[in-house]
Structures are given as C-alpha cells and as structure tokens.
C-alpha cells in the first residue's frame, strides 16, 4: 500500500469541497428559494373534456382565476402551480354528485361504494399516477377505537382502490406531534392495513420541506411544504372528524397542517391561514372518516366516552363542501368554523349544503 501523503489528502479534500460547492451552486441556480420544483399535477378529471358543459356557478370564480380548461395540457401550465391543481369541481360532470355520504358498518365497503357513487376512483386516479394519501395520525398514543387517528380500513381500502386504478405507487404519510412516526403508524393500525393493501408508509424526512409561495394567500404567503406532496399527481386527504379546541373541529382543511413544517406559525389567525394553505394544496379528493368521531378532548383523545360511532363516510372532491357536511355531524353549521368561512370566501369550494348535489347511500345491512 502506498503512503497517503498530506498533499494527496489535501488534493482530495479540495476536489471533494469543489464538488460540494458545485452542488451548492447548482441548487442556487434553481432560481430563487421560493420556486417550487416542477410539479406537473394533472387535472384531476379528464373524463369530461367538453368545456361546453355548463359549469356550476360557484366554480365560475375559480375559472376566472386563470384555471386551465379541463382539456388543456397540464405540462403547459404556468409555473404558479396552484392553477394546475384546479379544484376538481372545475371539471364538472353533471352525472356525478358533488358529494357522497355513505352510511354502514363496514368501513372498507363504505369506501368502495362511496367512491363508485361519486364516479369511480378512475375519475381521480389514472394509471401511472403517484398518489399520496394523508390520513390523520397525529399521535402515537391510542389505537383507532379512540378516534384520534383515521380508521385504518378506510385508509387501507383507499390505497387498494388507487392501486387497482393503476397508480404507480401509493404512499401514506403524516407527521405526528406526539410520539414518533414509526410508533404512531404502527399503533394506529394504519401501517398494517396500508401495507396489506400494497401501499407504503413514508416517514416524513426533515430535509424534504420546500419553501413554497402561496399566490392566493391572504395572510399566509409562504410556507414550507413537504416536497412529495407538492410533486404528487394525486393527494387524497383522509381526516378523521374530531374535536379541537382552537379550530373547534379537525376536518379536511385542518388535516393539511400535517404536510407543513412550521405549525406554530399557522395557529394565529388559524381559519384564514388554513384556507390559504388549502388554496395551494388542493386535495384531489377529500374523504372524511366519520366512522367514529371524537366529540371532546381532541385532538389526542384517549377516552372512549368521547367517541361516537356514526359509521359515516363523506367523500367529495370539494374540500370545503366535505368539511361543511362533516360539521353538521357535530351539530354545527359550516359557518361556525372559521376555516370554512375563509375557504368559501376565497372560492376554494362551496359550503352552502343546500345547493350541493349530495348523494346519500346506505351500504350493507
């Protein structure tokens, strides 16, 4: 073995340093820290390419906001990627309901039937899509019966449906605030169901948050968002409906907090900021798990007396509408929740339940 001299060492150190520096330069050349990496989110519904369909009036505002027509190519979309996601309601199809509310005691069947009633999973997930399912796995403390975390069978069957629709991969993630993700994934029972269904649990890495502009944001203009969520083709938001003392209820929009880094920042003026976040990250589909709901001591729970079994599932491409309906399960009005108010005002969706086409189905005996 030859001697490794000091000179050799310095040479290699310099070479290594130069390589690292070039990485740094390269990453600096991405052009400004706030630019989002190319995230070609395809329009969520391409089934009805005819723009001649009469759009439901509340989405007209969204159309005016520069949304591409449903038939346009997603790749040609401008760099402000909000436009690309487009609320799914912008691609209306008169035969599909705006929302399906399914009732029954078989969570897996609830998901299947509700999705087929809303137009089939194929309406949202196309072959080759990269899908992220975001349940609520906020703590590692309790099993699903305590209604602090999303029902594992709801998540599992969603994963299965996405894979059946030809999704390239389906990842499930959340960032628990109490306990480690590893522990929380296991104790919630979600990991078992997801892996059985063929999906994977992703433990959210600290370095994967990207500082992202929120062009439509009224109060929150910038936030660090998990990169994989930004670059996924489809995001399915699967909150469990439960009590929260500041937001009053944790539903679809509140569940999106799990994909950002600096959560204390969003606590002040929570309603508007949640709506701002939702304007940037619009889930393709919102599935509110109300199989069991937590009436008090949320979001952590732990007392079965606070749990109410409703055996209900709410499915809608409109996150505001889904949240609005879920609020009524707790005896509240949509307008009681600040983020629904803010979301409606921003045109992210509809909270006027009377104007929505809601299909209520009963599954099983």
């Amino acid at each position: 073995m030859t001697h490794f001299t000091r000179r050799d060492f310095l040479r290699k150190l310099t070479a290594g340093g130069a390589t690292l520096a070039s990485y740094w330069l390269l990453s600096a050349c991405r052009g400004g820290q706030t630019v989002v990496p190319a995230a070609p989110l395809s329009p969520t519904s391409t089934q009805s390419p005819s723009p001649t369909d009469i759009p439901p009036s509340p989405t007209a505002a969204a159309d005016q906001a520069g949304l591409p027509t449903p038939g346009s190519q997603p790749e040609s979309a401008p760099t402000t990627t909000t436009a690309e996601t487009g609320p799914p309601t912008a691609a209306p199809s008169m035969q599909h309901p705006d929302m399906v509310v399914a009732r029954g005691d078989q969570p897996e069947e609830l998901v299947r039937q509700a999705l087929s009633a809303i137009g089939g999973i194929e309406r949202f997930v196309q072959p080759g899509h990269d899908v992220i399912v975001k349940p609520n796995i906020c703590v590692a403390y309790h099993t699903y019966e305590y209604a602090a975390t999303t029902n594992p069978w709801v998540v599992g069957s969603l994963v299965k449906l996405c894979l059946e629709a030809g999704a390239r991969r389906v990842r499930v993630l959340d960032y628990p605030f109490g306990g480690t993700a590893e522990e929380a994934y296991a104790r919630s029972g979600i990991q078992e169901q997801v892996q059985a269904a063929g999906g994977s649990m992703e433990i959210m890495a600290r370095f994967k948050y990207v500082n992202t502009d929120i062009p439509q944001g009224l109060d929150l203009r910038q936030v660090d968002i998990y990169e994989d969520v930004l670059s996924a083709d489809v995001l399915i938001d699967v909150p469990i409906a439960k009590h929260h003392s500041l937001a009053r209820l944790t539903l679809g929009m509140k569940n999106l907090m799990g994909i950002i880094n600096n959560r204390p920042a969003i606590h002040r003026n929570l309603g508007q900021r949640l709506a701002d976040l939702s304007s940037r990250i619009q889930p393709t589909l919102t599935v509110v798990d109300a199989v069991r709901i937590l009436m008090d001591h949320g979001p952590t729970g732990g007392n079965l007396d606070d749990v109410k079994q409703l055996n209900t599932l709410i499915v809608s491409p409109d996150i505001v509408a889904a949240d609005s309906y879920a609020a009524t399960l707790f005896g509240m009005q949509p307008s009681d929740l600040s983020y629904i108010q803010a979301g409606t005002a921003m045109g992210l969706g509809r909270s006027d339940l009377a104007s929505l086409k809601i299909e209520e189905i009963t599954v099983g005996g």
Partner: protein
Amino acid sequence: MADRARRKKWWRPRRWTTLRRLVQYLALLAFVVLFVWSRRGGWPASLVNIPMRLDPLTMLAHLLASRTFLAGSALALITLGLTLTLGRAWCGWLCPLGTTLDLLPLRRRRYKAAGPSDSWRSVKYVLLLTTLAAALFANLTLLIFDPLTIFFRTLSLSLWPAVDQIVTGAEFVLYGVPVLRPAISTFDGLVRPRLLPPEPVFYRYTSLYAGLFLGLVLLNLVAHRFWCRYLCPLGGLLGLLSKVAIVRREVAADCTQCDVCARVCPTGTVQPEAGYASDPAECTMCMECVAACPRGSAEFPIHLSLAERQPYHPGRRQALASLGGALAGVGLLGSGLAARRDHPYLIRPPGARENNFLSKCIRCGECMRACPTSALQPALAEAGVEGLWTPLLVPRLGYCDYSCTACGQVCPVQAIPPLSLEEKREQVIGLAYIDQNRCIPWTDNQDCIVCEEMCPVPDKAVKLELVEVLNANGQWVSVQRPHVIRERCIGCGICEYKCPLNGQAAIRVYVPNDVI
C-alpha cells in the same frame, strides 16, 4: 511429527496479534451495534443490555449499593471467569474503550521508561477501592469512571448526535439538487429508521463528553493506553483477579535480553530489571511480546499460584485510605444542598423517583440513548455532585412520550423500573405550572391552545377557560385561558416542549409536590 511441524509453521506467533485485532474489532463492532439498536423499536432489552451486564465493576457496585441482586447481572460472572483463567484478556481483547485507545496509538514508541513512574499504577486500585467502598454506603457516583459507562456515554451524548447532525446536514444540502432527490430520499429511508434518531436529538453540553473522551485519548501521548495502565477502575478489579489467573506470561530461560518485548508491551509492564518478567495484573494478554520475540521465549504457561506482589499493588494502607475517602465523600455529599431538597427541575424518568434512584443508577446513559425524544438528559448540577450524569427529564429539549416505555426497558439495572405502558402512563413525574406573566392568552389576550391541544392525558390536564377580558386597546375580547388541573397532570412535559414562546416556556414542569 511432520504434521506437527507443518502446524507449527502454519501457526506463527504473529498470528496471535492478528487474531487479537480481529477479535477486538469484532467486539467493538458488536458493542457499537448493540448500542445502535438499543433504540426504541430496536432489539430486545435483554440483548442490548448485555454489554453493561458483562461489566463486573458496575454489577458489583450496584449489588453493594442497592442490596438487590439482578438475575441479569450474573452475566458479569462470564467476565470474572475469563479473568480468572486468562487474566486481563477483557482489557486486551474485548473492552471497547481499550480497543479505541489501541486504534489511536498517538505514541509510536511504547517503551515504558518514557512513561510515568510505576507507582501511578496504584491510582486505579485506589479508585476501584473507593468506588466499592462508596457503593457499600449506597453511593455510585464514581461509576462515571467505569470504562463502559464512559464509552456508552460518549456514544450517546456526543458521537451519535454529531453523526446525526452531519448526515442530516449533508442530506439538506444534497436534497437541494433536484436530480439527487430520489437517491437522498431512498438513502434516508434506509438509514434513518435503522441507525439514526428519528427526530433531531439535542443534549446539553455534547462537547463536554466529547472533550473528556478526547482527553482520555490524548493521554495516549504520555503513555500508550495510559487510561488502562494507571486509571481504569475496572482494569484494577480485573488486575487483582489476574493475580491468581491460570494462564500467565513467563519468560523462558533462553531469553537473550534483546529488550524487544519491553518495547512493544502496550501497558509497559515488561520489566527488564526483573529478567523481562511482567506483572499479570498489568498484562492484557495482547500477545504482542509473543509475536515480537525473535526466539519464542515469551510463553504463556499454566500456573496455579499467586502472582508476585508489586510495590504498586494495593495494601492495607490503600484500602484504609479508600474506605476513609469514601466515608468522607459520602458524608460530605449527604450533607450537601442537593441532598437536602430536590432541585425544582429534577424530573426523573418515569418510576425512578420512588426507588432510591441514586443507589441504583450506574450512570451508563442507556436511557438517554433510548429516549426517542432526547428528553432524558445527563444531570449536571441538578442532582448535586452525587448525581452527576444521572438522567433527568428536560422538557424544553424533549417530552416524555405518552406511548413510550423505552427508558425502563433498556435500563440494565432497573434503576428505572420496567413498567408496562399502562403503569407508566400513571406515573406522575412532574407537575406543570403556567407562568401567567408570559403565557400568550394571559398576557396578550390572544388565543393559544397549544398546551391543551398537546396534553396526552385522556381528560386533559390543561383546561381552557373562556373569559371576556379588556385588551390593551380597550376592547372586550373573549379568550381561552389555560389552567392546569393538578390531579390530572403527569408531568410528561409535552406542554413545555411545544409552548410556542421563544426561550423559556410559559408552562413549566417542576418536580412533583407531595402537598397537592
């Protein structure tokens, strides 16, 4: 005959040192691997506890101080048996600290004449006797000098956090390059769950432990394996036992006094003036002399006798001095401030407070390593000199996870009792108090419900009270103000950890109070 000659040719004396190095590296690897997988969700505690339980010094001291015998500590008998047969082979072949020091031979020439005087060797015996005497008086403070606790403390509190920082930093930089993203993602997904802490870990004064370890290594400049020769109390214990070890070094009559063995001996115990004989209490059975001897004169035959006494071996005087020193130390510590009343922030791991913690904890730091939130930190002044580097919960750095029992599982001596999750959830380790002078709803009349939101107790120990107050602008506003319900609080500290204020939290956990 021919067969024997061939075997002799195959097994050259030099192979002994090669074999020893191999065993040393494998043992070091095994110790590090057991350390790495002592994380929560890693290997079972019975496995990861093996290293500490192999250590006869900590096990003996624990037995003396706690007056309880742990079945697991019987593993130390393996080390004792090994020593009674092969002398200090533990030091030369297995000890992770010894191997680390061997790997960093800062002093190329190991000739003993250059080192300090042999009388220094008695330091380790005095340290050993004082440790054991203090253990008789239920004090285990001196176990901070045990080589295994030093090794694991350094790994837990310095090396691993630093490795985590470096790896995470590199990931942050490299993730900035879009083309590398999938690779970095895959790498992190593979490496972090197995090797690195799931959350960033922070310890108080990481550099202190690294510095102390570095100091130990730098002593190699004065003499190779300075620590093992002069200071190590475990080496002292094994050395005393080695005096009756069966296999001991001897020099054959055909020795030409070439002085090679004295030069290569890493502990400098080969004495030219005594016919190149060595002290079995100092010999680590490293076989360097066998490999170096040109004539094969260094041998390791079987003895059934007591080795010759050396001037630096402990006698009655050292024993009495150690006993006196231990007595004085225990008396002074017992009359110190820390013993009078608990430090307000001395929050012990769950279940540890009520069981004579200080006479059980061997200061190995396994619990701090296993704690997934790095909530358990080494005590500095909180527990007095007596409790130096025992674990305490520092909620601002990490909280006690409501779903975790890791510290009690990995504690090799059950100083932290191995509680079931249900039992652990009942443990009141502290009590939270709100600082109404800093709390946002109390001073700024704005909603902030973070402590209530985070509280893991089923019927929240933090309650919100809706009040109408006059704010600074003279407007009536309604605000939710947090209150702690004393009898529900378990002191897990997640409220203090998550409190959004900068600096000190507006809700702080104090030691539990018997009055309330």
